[in-house]
């Protein structure tokens, strides 16, 4: 699916914009340690962590974008880091589980990105 499809499905607010791209997978975790241990490719991170550290972790593991769940207030500093490293950032009001269910439904119904 496209990043823009994910944003639309989650009714997420875009905080840092960029050119649209294909998402093949998602990594959902609040533990940055878990995110650092993932071996996924072409993926977007779903997390409840709003700190600049979370964004840097996303950069380190080569995530294509970050979506912050549970309607948490994102620190301006985090938005700056995302902009600085060119990583798209969005925030949704949906809880982690609801976000995963929504995206899973989309991801696995679309034949092009079945994994």
């Amino acid at each position: 699916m496209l990043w823009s499809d994910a944003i639309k499905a989650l009714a997420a607010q875009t905080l840092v914009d960029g050119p649209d791209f294909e998402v093949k997978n998602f990594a959902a975790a609040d533990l940055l340690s878990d995110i650092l241990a993932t071996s996924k490719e072409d993926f977007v991170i779903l997390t409840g962590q709003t700190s600049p550290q979370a964004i840097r972790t996303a950069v380190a593991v080569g995530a294509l974008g970050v979506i912050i769940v549970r309607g948490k207030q994102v620190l301006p500093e985090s938005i700056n880091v995302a902009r600085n490293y060119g990583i798209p950032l969005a925030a949704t009001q949906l809880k982690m589980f609801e976000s995963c269910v929504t995206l899973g439904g989309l991801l696995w119904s679309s034949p092009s990105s079945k994994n």
Partner: protein
Amino acid sequence: MEFSFVEELVHRLKVFQAMATNVVTVSPENSLRDAQITMREARVSGIPVVKDNIMVGIVTIEDIIQALDHGYIEEPIDRWMTRDVVTVEPNWPLSRAMSILDRTRFGRLPVLDEDGRLCGVITPESILRALLTELNRLLARDEKSEVTIETLESEALRLRFEIEAGDYDRAGLASVQLKRELASRGVEPALQRRVAIATHEAETNLIIHSTSGGTIIADLEPESIRLTVTDDGPGIDDIEQAMQPGYSTASDFIRSLGFGAGMGLPNIKRCADHFEFKSKPGLGTRLNLRFDLKPRSATGQVQPADAIPSL
């Protein structure tokens, strides 16, 4: 127990960083009247009594009130001062001094060095000032880490990152800066990612566990990238245990930031082509990593690790 940010801060700050150093003192031969005048002029409620640079007692506003009440205000301080003074040491964590203040309800704690010389005083005001200064410093820092770049004789490029202990705010900064540097030099993305993950784990370890921070050196050589991570303490007792996925000694505060899940070392090992880890309690820890520029598999991608619960 849950640790708030301020609790973590007062644990990290040392007494000498939070004490007032321009301390007004009196000598034991002075009269209590002299002490009263000095206190009024300096606007303090207690004064250390010092003889030959050594603190011999303390006189407080309560002593002065008693002296005025009972008519001995002109007598020497020596006769009426408190000799059994609760003191603190400059290298104690500030939290320790704060709990003494809290328990004793004293208004001040003299700070004595190992020779008994007075080097400062801890008061609620000095603590507040130190906390505000530290918060300001943390907020004012920008997105830069202490990185130096030099070219070695072997023509390898050396990046050196100094990592501060307890500097959670900047966790991951060395990692993303190194990754950016690798990208600008045309290192392939999968290798960039492996190096960045290992660096991230290593710098987080230094921030959380090292006594006084540490150094990450990245040497960009023609055939490989070498990472050397060093600190001088506290060192690890049981290396085998530290290598166990999920084993961690991190506090709840650190876990609340999303770190400290105990997967750092196994994750570093997974990413590197060569992994060497040495540690001795009391001496420190040294990590030598090598990443080969030729991909280790057909794709060169990060391999899923059997030992690590992966997303």
